[in-house]
């Protein structure tokens, strides 16, 4: 593999500004690395012509005042609509769909000169925690347990983004996060991933899963790159009425590493029964690092934490059942072959049975049930009330002066592909136990790799920030990153 693809965004930017590197060289190196990494199954629609064209344009624009992302090759999650390029949300129901428009986030990235290498694998409609629900097949984690060649999950739903960045196929990637889909995979592959405050990035042109929870965010090799990429992705968009019309601060400039006097909360409810000792230790070590950097550590309580997952598994499927009603075989994507005499209802039913995978069907039906007459109040409204209490828990600790909250990112290291096949769906849902509260409360959360487990697999910690204070959150994450000094990389076997 070329050393060029191992560069961070910041390093590549600086080299290009100095004239030591061209985007064409860098992009070419990434395309070569991607072609050699089909075993990871990350890039499911490669766009080399678009990439080289964008790289040439970036090289023409190069200069000290070009945007940070000018000429930087990125991977784009398949959930983002990209004009003229397949955008399937990893679902058979969107087979052949080529949007006639470009999502706001990718529009902004390209306006800043970013280069698209292709579309990245994911769980179908972002529903999954292991990237095993994709119509393109599983993504493989570049990490292995020592010399054991068992194929591991990169997590999900942004599993393709995670593996591609960890394997140095691209310099960064877009992800989306509805219950942990940026932070859990980032932790499973030893990279950084931030889900910003709900409303920071426009959702326009991103295939919708659960509209009140979905947010886009970057997945990158370090915290500085996350700051750079988030900057370009953020901002108000008149086409998304929930995107916030407030200024986007300079995130990279906030990275001083000075967190003296900051108050970091350690929530007791995140200490789960049966939590692996390695995760306990990782968390304690991270706490000690922030303390050594001058932060004040306080024990806090977020009493409704336990109810976050059940509330999520009402609200997210309810919104999904509504959002996914549009896949009916009429306007785009797949339509089932009909038998003689079939009417429009049979067309809908057969199309959706053929087009949606098992997990998506299950969630759409659960959502349909909790919204149906007679159950709406008992399930959906109750879950929304509990959601209000979960948010209130966070409001209370922030009001008491807590600046950020430190938790584990995941309850374990990456597990083997197929290992959860026999488990009931709830076992898989537990992967998001530490991340889902953040979506329900609309807060920013970032996963930072801080250690390895006994088998040599990466583990990450999560920092949760106050709403709209990503700059501060990134700075705390930067301090943690510097203290942890995580530099391990997977050994190339692919």
């Amino acid at each position, binding site marked *: 593999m070329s050393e060029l693809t191992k560069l961070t965004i910041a390093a590549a930017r600086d080299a290009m500004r100095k004239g030591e590197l061209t985007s064409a060289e860098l992009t070419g190196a990434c395309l070569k690395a991607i072609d050699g990494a089909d075993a990871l199954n990350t890039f499911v629609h490669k766009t080399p012509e678009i990439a080289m064209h964008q790289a040439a344009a970036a090289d023409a624009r190069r200069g000290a005042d070009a945007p940070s992302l000018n000429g930087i090759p990125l991977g784009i999650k398949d959930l983002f609509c990209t004009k003229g390029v397949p955008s399937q949300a990893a679902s058979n129901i969107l087979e052949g769909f080529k949007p006639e428009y470009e999502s706001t986030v990718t529009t902004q990235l390209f306006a800043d000169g970013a280069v698209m290498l292709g579309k990245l694998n994911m769980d179908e409609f972002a529903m999954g925690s292991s990237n095993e629900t994709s119509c393109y097949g599983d993504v493989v984690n570049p990490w292995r347990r020592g010399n054991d060649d068992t194929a591991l999950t990169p997590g999900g739903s942004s599993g393709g983004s995670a593996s591609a960045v960890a394997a140095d196929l691209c310099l960064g990637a877009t992800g989306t996060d509805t219950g942990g889909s940026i932070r859990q995979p980032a932790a499973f592959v030893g990279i950084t991933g931030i889900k910003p405050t709900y409303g920071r990035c426009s959702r326009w042109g991103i295939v919708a899963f659960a509209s009140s929870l979905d947010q886009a965010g970057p997945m990158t090799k370090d915290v500085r790159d996350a700051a750079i990429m988030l900057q370009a992705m953020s901002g108000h968009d008149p086409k998304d009425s929930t995107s916030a019309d407030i200024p986007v601060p300079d995130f990279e400039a906030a990275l001083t590493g000075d967190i003296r006097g900051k108050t970091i909360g350690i929530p007791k409810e995140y200490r789960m029964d049966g939590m692996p000792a390695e995760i306990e230790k990782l968390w304690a070590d991270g706490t000690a690092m922030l303390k050594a950097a001058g932060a004040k550590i306080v024990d806090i309580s977020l009493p409704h934490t336990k109810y976050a997952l059940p509330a999520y598994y009402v609200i997210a499927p309810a919104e999904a059942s509504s959002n996914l009603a549009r896949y009916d*075989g009429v306007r785009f*994507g797949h339509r089932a072959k009909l038998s003689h005499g079939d009417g429009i209802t049979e067309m809908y039913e057969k199309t959706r049975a053929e087009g949606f995978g098992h997990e998506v069907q299950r969630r759409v*039906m659960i959502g349909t049930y909790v919204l149906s007459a007679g159950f709406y109040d008992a399930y959906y409204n109750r879950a929304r009330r509990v959601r209000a209490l979960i948010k209130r828990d966070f409001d209370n600790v922030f009001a008491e002066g807590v600046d950020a909250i430190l938790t584990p990112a995941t309850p374990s290291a990456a597990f083997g592909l197929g290992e959860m096949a026999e488990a009931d769906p709830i076992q898989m849902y537990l992967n998001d136990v530490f991340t889902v509260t953040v979506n329900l409360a609309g807060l920013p959360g970032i996963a930072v790799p801080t250690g390895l487990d006994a088998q040599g697999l990466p583990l990450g910690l999560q920092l949760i920030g106050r709403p709209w204070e990503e700059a501060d959150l990134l700075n705390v994450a930067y301090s943690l990153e510097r203290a942890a000094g995580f530099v391990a990389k997977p050994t190339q076997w692919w």
Partner: protein
Amino acid sequence: MSIDVDTARRVAKLARIKVEDEALPALASEFSAILGFIEQLNEVDVTGVEPMTSVTPMRLKRRDDVVTDGNQQAAVLKNAPDAREGFFAVPKVVE
């Protein structure tokens, strides 16, 4: 709460997803497991708590009521599985 086969069939119908009869018992038992998990929510005292409508306290912006788009018929129909004479085509709806 236990979901029976008839309820599973009704939910599949409401969701417009064809589920074969032989698949219904397994589906019903999956629903029961997930709803059992969700039922933990009944332990929470939600007296006086309003259902959350917006996670960030903000007023949704209104845009001017003006035409901003149009004349996109070809683009709109471009991805249709079946489009004829400028329309989406579907099986006969009215007898």
